[in-house]
């Protein structure tokens, strides 16, 4: 089986909102795909379709080779779901939660007890295992949630915004856990609003906005959408800044940006290594001491901005003009 998840022309409408608009994508077996987009982009709706929680209006979706419309029950034996909307029971202990999920995967008692213990150990929740979940921190709760989704040892895992609202350290712990699972062969489809998360974890990224797939590819391929690279030069002595800029401005594909505090000049460039070499030679011939010289890819934030006209985070998103505003 080459692809673990196949989505073909799936649409889903809620009233006047087209939550999914002709979405197609493929996740290779053992790969990680990130659905990247702001709130309301349709990421969670797609996860709900793929985890058999919601029927699509049209189109086909297969998970593990099985159709979500006709083989939902089989799919449920193959998948795990964790994240912001699938949750754990606050009044039960961590262990009780895991054992219940194991029972509902139809594992024998001895097996789910053993797996619950293993999962608690793996998620470093052994000490808290017999305490009610309501006493857990946000990070512990997410780890337990992830553990619950792993009890059935699903080959395909859905993580809906697994790290939203977590502090950076807890987020890094969770990333490490997800990377372990991937190393063991699990296929992962995760949704995120964070570029950094998509870039860090995913082999492929599908950018969604308003229910549509606006772009997909590897992080590098997406950055190629923006065209070219960014050349960055950092000089040792600030007085050399203008001289350096004048020397290499001929290589640039656009206007330079000079940052005196960082003693840094950055240019968009059309070429690659050849431009870097030429820039290095020009600076060296002029006797300018260079602290750092390199080609930077545009950030995914810049890519998302160019694809959708707004950023992924809602607060910095495009704001609609106020209709009553007539003042200059």
């Amino acid at each position, binding site marked *: 089986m080459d692809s673990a998840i196949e989505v073909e022309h799936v649409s889903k409408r809620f009233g006047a909102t087209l939550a999914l608009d002709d979405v197609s994508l493929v996740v290779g077996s053992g790969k990680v795909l990130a659905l990247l987009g702001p709130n309301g982009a349709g990421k969670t709706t797609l996860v*709900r379709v793929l*985890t*058999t*929680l*919601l029927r699509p209006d049209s189109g086909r979706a297969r998970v593990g080779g099985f159709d979500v419309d006709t083989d939902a*029950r*089989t799919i*449920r*034996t*193959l*998948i795990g*779901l964790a994240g*912001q*909307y*699938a*949750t*754990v*029971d*606050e*009044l*039960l202990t961590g262990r*009780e939660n895991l054992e*219940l*999920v194991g*029972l*509902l*995967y*139809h*594992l*024998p008692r001895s*097996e789910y007890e053993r797996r619950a213990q293993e999962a608690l150990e793996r998620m470093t929740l052994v000490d808290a295992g017999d305490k*009610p979940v309501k006493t857990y921190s946000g990070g512990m709760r997410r780890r337990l949630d992830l553990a*619950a989704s792993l009890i*059935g*040892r699903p*080959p395909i895992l859905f993580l809906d915004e697994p790290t939203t609202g977590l502090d950076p350290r807890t987020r890094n712990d969770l990333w490490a856990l997800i990377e372990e*699972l991937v190393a*063991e*062969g*699990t296929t992962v489809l995760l949704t995120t609003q964070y570029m950094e998360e998509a870039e860090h974890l995913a082999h492929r990224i599908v950018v969604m906005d308003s229910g549509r797939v606006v772009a997909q590819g590897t992080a590098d391929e997406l950055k190629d959408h923006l065209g070219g690279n960014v050349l960055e030069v950092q000089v040792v002595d600030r007085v050399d800044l203008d001289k350096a800029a004048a020397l290499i401005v001929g290589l640039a594909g656009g206007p330079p940006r000079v940052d005196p505090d960082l003693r840094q000049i950055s240019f968009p460039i059309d070429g690659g290594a050849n431009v870097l070499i030429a820039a290095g030679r020009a600076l060296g011939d002029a006797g300018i001491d260079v602290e750092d010289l390199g080609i930077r890819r545009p950030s995914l934030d810049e890519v998302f901005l160019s694809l959708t006209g707004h950023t992924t985070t809602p607060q910095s998103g495009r704001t609609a003009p106020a209709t009553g505003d007539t003042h200059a």
Partner: protein
Amino acid sequence: MPDLALDPDLVSAAPVTLGLAVRDMKGITKRNLLRIIRTPQLLFMTLVQPTIILLLFRYVLGGAIRVPGLDYVDYVVPGIFLEAVLIGGMTTALALATDLQAGMIDRFRSLPMTRSAFLIGRTLADLCRAVLALAFIIGLGLLVGFRFHSSPGACLAGIALIVGFGYAFTWVYAAIGLAVKDPQTAQMTSILPMFILFFASSALVPVSTMPGWLQPFAQNQPASVTIDSVRALFEGGPVYHDLWQAVLWCLGIFVVFFTISLTLYRRATA
């Protein structure tokens, strides 16, 4: 490196057997019983209301109500038994709406468990709580002067009828909880059918004292039919012809609202 491939011996995609369905149901029932035990304040609240009604109608209002051929305490207490079971059922709506909103239902629906087991497990746990509440209110009824006058068999049959009606009605609350989706709204919405069925019934006063336009409803609605049967079973008089009607009501309510609840659950979206 752990083997993450599916182990066919442990996770089976085969059709769920009755044995597995029962096991799912027991798992869910246990979960809900643990939740009930761990929120004793909720259990307590469901006992307060019938206690107040019982004391109110026994000691405050009861003196002014005359019922032919029967002490008022023996008339009113069986109705309050039913009320104690019905009021507790409101927590079914609350619990399901809470599970829906918190995402628990998404979790369970993404598992290979039997779908109906989730709802049956919920209602069975609530049935246990209802039996507990009923035992409490029976004790209280005996304390304030209520007496069973018939054979133990008939009395047990009356209690079974109350429990059966309460269980059937739990499915009405389940449908409400899944339909309104919001815990607060679920609680508010559940009060309505309970109040209508309990107050516009023969529970507190004879239907013949009500205005003419209300009597046909009050006489024939399921709570009245059930209370009349229960009262007859406790009093040891001739069991009303409407015992079979009461049983039919229970079955009818169960079948209709089980179907509605299961349909809502299958399509559940928070």
